[in-house]
């Protein structure tokens, strides 16, 4: 489109206004989490804490088991991420570069499954996890997330661009497929692995319904489950809830800001396929 003359300022004003709207809930969340009870009693509600305090954060750790929830969320998200990187990259490599019977129809079938909502699987999945004795365990939450069609797709798309001649050269040197996968494919796919890692970690960290179903013991709660549970008891304590929300959101926001290039590239690679 042509360069704008008069419209330029207007576009910037609209964008800045929209940015302020997008950021405002975060700003307010942090602000309220630092307020004292007196600050909250003021009218009109102040935008900034008058007497900033960290007492609500302290209460989360001292009186409630915030440290435990952070640990649970971290371990579960790491477990899902590591296993999904391994399993999906292996399958992605085979689908991209190896020839086997039924490869393309199998892959199309996997892709078609992406339109099935995960909620449709949850009831029997719960019964399976229960029969396996894995209710209230990390394993019960991690296992269904260990491979994903999206992950396989992402890796496959990326590896398609690796020239076959490179792999053939390694094969002539006598390397087997696993050797090629480990010493050639894995280093080559580092950028896409980072994309997938960020996606998977955030997806697992933010996941709510599945952990809610599997976890009934409080010391196993992940942050979102704990937060939803706290909302029941502490709804009259906005500062405490906001502090909990800050701690829940902070790790994923930091991760995103640090690795957003990979994240957004992965998203676009997965989205603009046809």
């Amino acid at each position, binding site marked *: *489109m042509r*360069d*704008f003359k008069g419209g330029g300022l207007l576009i*910037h004003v609209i964008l800045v206004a*929209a*940015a302020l709207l*997008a*950021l405002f*809930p*975060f700003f*307010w969340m942090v602000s309220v989490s630092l307020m004292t009870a007196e600050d909250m009693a003021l009218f*009109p509600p102040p*935008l900034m804490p008058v007497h900033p305090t960290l007492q609500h954060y302290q209460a989360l750790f001292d009186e409630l088991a915030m440290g435990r929830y952070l640990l649970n969320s971290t371990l579960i998200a790491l477990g899902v991420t590591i296993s999904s990187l391994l399993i999906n990259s*292996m*399958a992605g*490599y085979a689908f991209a570069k*190896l020839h*086997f019977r039924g*490869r393309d129809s199998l892959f199309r079938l996997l892709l078609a*499954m992406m*339109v*099935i*909502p995960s*909620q*449709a*699987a*949850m*009831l*029997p999945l719960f019964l399976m996890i229960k029969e396996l004795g894995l209710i209230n365990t990390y394993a019960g939450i991690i296992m*269904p997330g*260990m*491979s994903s069609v999206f992950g396989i797709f992402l890796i496959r798309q990326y590896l398609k661009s690796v020239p076959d001649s490179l792999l053939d050269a390694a*094969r002539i040197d006598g390397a087997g497929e696993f050797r090629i*996968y480990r010493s050639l494919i894995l280093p080559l796919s580092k950028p896409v692995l980072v994309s997938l890692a960020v996606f998977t970690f*955030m997806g697992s960290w*933010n996941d*709510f*319904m599945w952990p809610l*179903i599997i976890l009934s013991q409080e010391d196993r709660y992940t*942050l*979102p*489950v704990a*937060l939803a549970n706290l*909302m029941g008891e502490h709804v009259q304590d*906005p500062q405490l*809830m*906001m502090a909990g*929300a800050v701690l*829940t*959101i902070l790790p*994923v926001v930091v991760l*995103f800001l640090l690795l*957003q290039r990979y994240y*957004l590239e992965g*998203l*676009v690679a997965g*989205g*603009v*396929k*046809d």
Partner: protein
Amino acid sequence: MTPTQRPSAAFWLVFPALLMTGLFFVLPIVAALLLSFTDFDLYALARWDHLRLIGFENYRHLLNDPLFFLALKNTFYFVAIGVPLSVSASLLTALLINQRGVRGQGFFRTVFFLPVVTTLVAVAVVWRYLYHPRLGLLNYVLSLLGIEPIDWLGDPQWAMPSLIIMAVWKNFGFNMVIFIAGLKSIPRRLYEAAEVDGAGAFEQFRSITLPLLAPTFVFVGIVTLIGYFQLFAEPYVMTQGGPSGRTLSVALLMFEEGFRWWNLGYAAAISFVLFLIILSGTVLQMLMRRFL
């Protein structure tokens, strides 16, 4: 390398992923269908031999369950208003950011994307307070404009719109990034040629941008539709399905029936109907693409 060795390597590379997908996705989906033909409840949970096959009884029950129709209505409301609003907000911001000469494109993209990566439960907590009739800033801002306070989440008329507003805020950045990528893939020379022909900005948008963005629209539409039909955490955290059941979604009803009342057979029927609705929505959009 002989051709016989390679298939076995391929098999072992693909096997873990297929095993996991089969075990934890395909099998449960099939089992959900079977489960929906049983009367699986609390007693069967304790002893499997209490389980009985009851054919289409659960589905018949669904058709006579006012709660199910309420949930269905609410969910369609959320999707019918939420999806177009989300997609429009995404397209609009993508177009604005993608204008030539806009400064700080990367900054705006990051800011608009930020709500997408944040934990839904946490932002639902924040918005619940934003919507608070007394503490919430939303009503304070409205009062400055001389508008009467609104009981956002407590008023049956306003509860679902409140959830929609929050969902649009949370999600528009996702589709925006996809739209920006789509816009960037349109060759600039098309616009230059149109300019030479004397086409205005709107005419360029209508005859170049929109048609070339059609595949992106289909993708964005399908992904958003699938996501919005699964509405769960927002009502769970913010309204518990209330007031007067006006934010009860199909997924929330499934959760309540299945994991609160342990009517797993009935809940499976609900989840299967939801699946079929999402599937037909997806197929419909794919067909639309073919005929457009």
